[in-house]
């Protein structure tokens, strides 16, 4: 099941911001999905995600823009059950969530650490498609649910570090996917 995502312009590959950077800690503002700058930002996020080994999602604050915009694509990941292919959403929020499970997450903006995070595994997300502004509901599970929540957290100024489960739940990363300086979110 894919999302009827409008065709985006060509995206530029942007530099990914790392913690501790202020832009990762502030809540992004809602934005106009039809604004050409927002549409271009979506395309840029997708382009940056695509060239980053293992990356399955990227949010606007991670490229230095404080806005509620992100992209996700978990279709090639082995932990995926349901997938909607490439997702790009504006002003998204989780509207339903259940069945918490713990799993280890990583993040391009925290490249040297991973952490155990408990999150709902069945969720419904509401958000606006770029360009058309159409409001869509995405009901999903497992890895796609985790990736969506990780990116929605970024848009709210939160990192996985804010949600780890205990004092011993953060770990130095032991496996890098090809390029340590450009890993991916939620591996």
């Amino acid at each position, binding site marked *: 099941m894919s999302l009827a995502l409008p065709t985006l312009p060509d995206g530029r590959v942007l530099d990914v911001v790392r913690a*501790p950077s202020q832009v990762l800690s502030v809540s992004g503002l809602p934005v106009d999905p039809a604004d050409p700058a927002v549409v271009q930002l979506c395309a840029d996020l997708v382009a940056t995600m695509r060239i980053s080994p293992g990356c399955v999602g990227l949010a606007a604050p991670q490229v230095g823009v404080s806005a509620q915009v992100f992209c996700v694509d978990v279709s090639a990941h082995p932990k995926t059950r349901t997938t909607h292919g490439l997702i790009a959403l504006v002003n998204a929020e989780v509207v339903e969530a259940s069945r918490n499970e713990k799993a280890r997450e990583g993040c391009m903006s925290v490249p*040297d*650490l991973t952490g155990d995070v408990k999150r709902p595994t069945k969720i419904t997300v509401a958000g606006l498609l770029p360009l058309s502004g159409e409001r869509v509901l995405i009901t999903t599970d497992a890895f796609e649910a985790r990736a969506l929540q990780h990116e929605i957290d970024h848009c709210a100024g939160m*990192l996985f*570090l804010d949600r*780890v489960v*205990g004092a011993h739940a*953060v770990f130095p990363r032991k496996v890098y996917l090809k390029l340590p300086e450009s890993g991916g979110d939620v591996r």
Partner: protein
Amino acid sequence: MTSLAITVVGHDRPGIIAQAAEVLSQCGMNLEDSSMTLLRGHFAMTLICAGEADAEQVDAALQPLVNGSLDVTVREVPEEPDLPPLGSTYLVTVHGADRLGIVARLASVIAQAGGNITDLTTRLSGALYVLLAEVDLPRSADVAALQARLAEVSAELGVDTSMRLIENDEL
């Protein structure tokens, strides 16, 4: 029966834990609670063991372990009651740019609120400093006031702090 607190800190190499555990076993000391980890590449072991040997005997038996690169301390400790917390346990998460005094300032705020830190880890990863603390708060503690004070001090320090109740899933 004696309880001993033992620390072993120094240059890491394969076999430290095997050797230390073997010595304790030979001395008839039962290894109870322990933490054995690497801290910025240094091997760091802290443990409580109990048995019939005294601190002097165990210290002597551990000396071959030292090998010029490890510091070993052994001392007798009284039995401590290992009680569950009376209130609730919270996880305080802090991350931000490294600077002097983050742990001191925030731990002081927690102590002033009557909070007892039972487990704390910190990690410096490049420019990013991460602190995770499990805090027992008595039932009488004002959680909202503590959260507000932590937010205030965190803003002064330029770090992000969150404090959440630790959920225990009873199965």
